[in-house]
């Protein structure tokens, strides 16, 4: 005898279609025009910032930079669903979420400009810094959620990972722990279809990345990652459940990486230009702007004003970044141990003695 012992399905949520038409019930937060406008404003600011950061890199004023172009809805959707006291464990390109939480653009620039002080940001002080080793942050988020659970706090942890990152062991380990321990957290897989040059079909044979949570026994949803209303609605629901003790959610946000992987990458080497052109039709700013216009909340004049305001804010951030002098060489030795061991003190003196001797040359 054979019988079906378990069955699963993955739901996909879209609130606004690419034309900005409402295709689901309007989520509660979206009834408040101020919320909608702040989300749209931040998405626009993120994009303005992104263009500027790429220019800074191209002109030698910034190191390698990971663009967030095309991810604005996913990132702002996540950030706006979180509370300050929640804990964010990002990867490396979620500026929209971080700016919402209070990280400054000048701090983003400092990080990619090769200065640790970017990680000492003014967003929530308990948030984790950027995380370059793929998937390792998922375990930190699980640990953070465990801390909240053990202390009986109504706080959640949120972590973000890419489609490529879902191939790493650490991702599955974190999912499994979150399921086994009913951790108050949300995993967001930002599926932008590419992991540098590797397309999704070489990462996995699964139909969705959302379903990767099924084997861990956690709730799984997929959302249109270019639809900021869908991302925020699904995130709010996931976090409300987590706070209510109902455990973790894995949310897959389907979007597209409109930029090169980073400024060190040249995507034309591996990705057809038609694919990118098509993806632009679904880009996230377009549909929310159309929706706002259809509701009489937005017009060309406001758009123009916003773009000018964003440019000014970004310019001010760039100025602040460029005016931040390099740390002294002794800073290398600060914060290594709670108390500096003697051996380090000796090395510190050597480093100071040789400061500017052009190591490496």
């Amino acid at each position, binding site marked *: 005898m054979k019988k079906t012992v378990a069955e699963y399905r993955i739901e996909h949520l879209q609130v606004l279609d690419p034309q900005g038409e409402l295709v689901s019930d309007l989520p509660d937060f979206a009834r408040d025009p101020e919320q909608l406008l702040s989300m749209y404003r931040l998405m626009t600011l993120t994009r303005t910032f992104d263009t500027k950061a790429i220019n800074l890199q191209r002109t030698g004023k910034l*190191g*390698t930079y990971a663009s967030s172009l095309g991810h604005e809805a996913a990132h702002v959707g996540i950030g706006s669903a979180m509370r300050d006291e929640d804990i964010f464990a990002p990867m*490396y390109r979620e500026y929209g979420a971080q700016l919402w939480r209070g990280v400054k653009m000048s701090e983003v620039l400092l*990080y*990619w*400009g*090769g*200065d*640790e002080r970017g990680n000492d940001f003014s967003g929530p002080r308990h948030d984790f810094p*950027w995380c*370059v*080793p*793929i998937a390792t942050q998922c375990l930190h988020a699980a640990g953070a959620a465990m801390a909240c659970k053990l202390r009986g706090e109504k706080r959640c942890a949120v972590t973000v990972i890419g489609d*490529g*990152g879902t*191939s*790493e*062991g*650490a991702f599955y380990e974190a999912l499994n722990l979150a399921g086994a321990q009913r951790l108050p957290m949300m995993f967001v897989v930002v599926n932008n279809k590419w*992991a*540098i*040059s*590797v397309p999704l079909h*070489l*990462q*996995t044979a699964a139909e969705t990345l959302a379903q990767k949570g099924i084997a861990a026994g956690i709730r799984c949803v997929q959302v249109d990652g270019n639809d900021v209303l869908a991302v925020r609605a699904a995130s709010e629901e996931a976090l409300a459940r987590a706070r209510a003790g109902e455990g973790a959610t894995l949310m897959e946000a389907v979007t597209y990486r409109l930029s090169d992987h980073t400024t*060190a*990458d040249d995507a034309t*080497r*591996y990705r057809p230009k038609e694919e990118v052109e098509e993806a632009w039709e679904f880009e996230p700013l377009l549909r929310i702007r159309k929706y706002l216009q259809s509701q009489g909340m937005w017009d060309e004049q406001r758009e123009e004003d916003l773009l000018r305001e964003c440019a000014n804010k970004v310019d001010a951030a760039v100025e602040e970044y460029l005016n931040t002098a*390099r*740390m002294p*060489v002794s*800073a*290398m*030795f600060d914060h*290594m141990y709670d108390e500096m061991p003697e*051996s*380090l003190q000796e*090395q*510190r003196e*050597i*480093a100071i003695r*040789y*400061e*500017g*001797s*052009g*190591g*490496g*040359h």
Partner: protein
Amino acid sequence: MPRITLIEGVTMALAHELEKDDRVVVLGEDVGVNGGVFRATAGLQQRFGAERVMDTPLAESMIAGMSVGMAAQGMRPVPEIQFMGFIYPAVDQMISHAGRLRHRTRGRLQCPMVLRAPYGGGIHAPEHHSESTEAMFAHMPGVRVVIPSSPTRAYGLLLASIRCPDPVVFLEPKRIYRLAKQEVEDNGEALPLDVCYILREGTDATIVTWGAMTHETMKAANELDQKGISCEVIDLATISPIDFDTILESVEKTGRLIIVHEAPNNCGVGAEVAATVAEKGIYDLKAPIRRVTGYDTVMPLFRLEMEYLPSVRRIADAVVETLED
């Protein structure tokens, strides 16, 4: 003969072995269509197909572990880890399996794989892209660690590593990937994996170094030469196991030893060189051994990274101080 860079030496060796030996498979993240983020595998997938030059899912433990499996079954996998900073999930496979397989099966199974990774600082890269942790692998019994410092040695040592029946961690100093060109003939001639290279003969002091630091060290040696100080510079090249004979012979002649490396000082490979010279050559030494190394700090982000890397002046001063002792 083509004039090629260090990274082209890597590509040439990979192509040579892919052509000659159908057991060889190159695999890793972005090594296929993209040709590797540094272009080390450029053109190889087009030439040899997606089964010989394979884009894998993004998982380093998997990359190393599947390579152990392939190698044990008679293939010659050459996995690439995109940056040394992401090699750590692979460490488990290297120490728990690659280095032990032959020993624990009493020779029944072997693990002829070459785990390649670019390493080291100085290219203005983001966080986790600039460390030098070769000592970690040198500490693994049964694993060879090889670091080329020139196009010729990249080609010859990689050929040798691929043909070697032992697992090899092949670390490529990315700061000098494109620094200098040499004429290298694609003749399939491997270099030995058990000798170090005397880059420059001298009589007053021996400087042992490897990887990108060979360049600063050679500059320091040339500057010292102007001042009448004659340095012998040795490129360790095979970090584990080490050819101590060449080093001991040199120290016997010069009586002075300076070790230069980019990695942190504490338990660096320099400590092993110093300890062995102390054990076997202490009566030849006229002065204490000196080490010029990276500091025992986290590798700083790039605004400070050049302050971290040993400079020509630090190396030259260390030689002068050793001579004054």
